[in-house]
């Protein structure tokens, strides 16, 4: 009898010890992972990864090289299928989904080594980001039915609008592959935003940028969060950026979370310092 009663109980996921910004407490967290892990041929690349991100939080994922940060992104975006645990995006379990389906649930990302559609124009890159936002079927595309003209026009306008976030609307007809490095990184963010995400993952957005550009990027990340009311999670080695804009920070080492907290908590955490600088020699 007890067993029966138990199976009738509706279980609601409640993450045990997770922090979200105060303003997000009443909103559904955009991302929850529980015991997330993946093995490559017996090697545990990520293990027992538990994280909750608030609806409008800017979160940071940091850790030494090879800690498994990008693997976490690949798990969250379903490029890799986890061997353990669950990823819940906006309240929905992503088990068995592929990357394209995860994108439809509202997760978007940029790549550490830029992956633009290099042979196409800047505008086309953004239009591809709008693939599931402004749509018409293949037949109306080939037959040039009215819906084609209407939706193409809508795509064009929306693309320029999104490009204007980074003041890139004048580059719309430039080939994406020929853009300077910084502009390519910004275009990747625009393309990701075009998918209308609820959670935006940025993989080393400041890599290769000078301090001035990084400063600008920080302002833009906050601007994007405020304007679109979305959550942003970023991997970054630039500690000024991470400590400057991230609200919740998660530190990864050898595939495991070694610390979670606010910037000041992380900065004074001895385990984190040890992971980055090595164990201090006892005098």
């Amino acid at each position, binding site marked *: 009898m007890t067993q029966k009663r138990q199976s009738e109980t509706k279980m609601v996921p409640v993450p045990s010890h997770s922090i979200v910004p105060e303003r997000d407490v009443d909103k559904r967290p955009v991302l929850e992972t529980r015991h997330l892990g993946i093995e*490559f*041929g017996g090697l545990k690349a990520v293990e027992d990864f538990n994280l909750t991100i608030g609806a409008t939080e800017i979160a940071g994922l940091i850790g030494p090289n090879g800690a498994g940060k*990008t693997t976490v992104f*690949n798990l969250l975006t379903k*490029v*890799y299928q986890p061997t353990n645990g669950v990823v819940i995006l906006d309240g929905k379990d992503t088990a068995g989904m592929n990357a394209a389906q995860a994108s439809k649930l509202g997760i978007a990302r940029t790549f550490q080594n830029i992956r633009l559609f290099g042979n196409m124009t800047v505008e086309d890159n953004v239009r591809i980001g709008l693939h599931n936002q402004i749509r018409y079927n293949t037949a109306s595309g080939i037959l040039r039915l009215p819906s084609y003209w209407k939706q193409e026009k809508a795509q064009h306008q929306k693309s320029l609008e999104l490009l204007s976030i980074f003041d890139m609307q004048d580059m719309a007809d430039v080939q994406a592959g020929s853009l300077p490095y910084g502009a390519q990184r910004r275009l990747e963010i625009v393309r990701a935003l075009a998918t209308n995400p609820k959670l935006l993952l940025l993989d080393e957005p400041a890599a290769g940028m000078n301090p001035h550009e990084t400063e600008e990027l920080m302002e833009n990340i906050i601007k994007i969060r405020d304007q679109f009311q979305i959550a942003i999670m970023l991997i970054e080695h630039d500690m000024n950026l991470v400590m400057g804009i991230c609200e919740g920070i998660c530190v990864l080492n050898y595939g495991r979370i070694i610390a979670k907290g606010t910037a000041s908590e992380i900065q004074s955490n001895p385990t984190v310092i040890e992971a980055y600088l090595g164990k201090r020699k006892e005098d």
Partner: protein
Amino acid sequence: MVSLLSHLLNGISLGSVYAIIALGYTMVYGIAKMLNFAHGDVIMIGAYITFSAVHMWNMPPVLAVVISMVVCTVLGVLIEGLAYKPLRQATSLAVLITAIGMSYLLQNIALLVWGPNPKSFPSVIGLPSISLLDGQLIIAAETIVTVLANIVIMIALTLFTNKTKMGKSMRGVSEDKGAAQLMGINVNLTISVTFAIGSALAAIAGVLLCSTYPVLMPTTGSMPGIKAFTAAVFGGIGSIPGAMLGGILLGVIEILGKAYVSTELSDAIVFGVLIIVLLVKPTGLLGKKVHEKV
């Protein structure tokens, strides 16, 4: 029962030829990460050279085979240096199309030099066949020589890759080209040597193939070439024992398919095997699993 045995023997013989050809594919694929589409046509050139040496210049067969091996080795290194080396950084699409172009070039050169008419290629192996079970089962000398050649080559190659410095360089380059270069391995030289070995083996395969199927045409090499690639994939690309296993299995499947299913469909059966292997176990029977880096 005896006919099954005889089909099996024929299959093993044909499979041994596939195995030797497959070695060329598997080594090149493992190290240069490219499908050398022209490999089958190097076999054809090798067979023509042996044919010309024996029947036009009246050389002893052993010398003819050695000359053929030398010519094919030079040819293989030349092809790699002229056509493939400039494309190290290019897309696999570009490399494959170039290799197809090279295959057609060799076929058409052979067409101009030796003409379009099929040449009958009398066996260069002048040994008697063995008769067993009161003459019910006849094992051709070609079969024995082919299988023996296959075994000798396999042992020699295994020793070479495991014991010599060049062999270890090859394994290093196939594992990680960049890291091998940093460790002081001459990557270009290693790739050239791989092509040289593969092409020399192609010359032997050409002679053995034509000793069993005595018709020589400019297109003789292309079908066995594609089937041998199938064998290499079947066994697990990059693996030397895999090439041997895949080759022999494929040869047996082909001969049994011809004998018991349909002559028309034997090629379809062989290619069906390729498709099933690639879908079910893309790494082949003895291949290693690799992860895509994102």
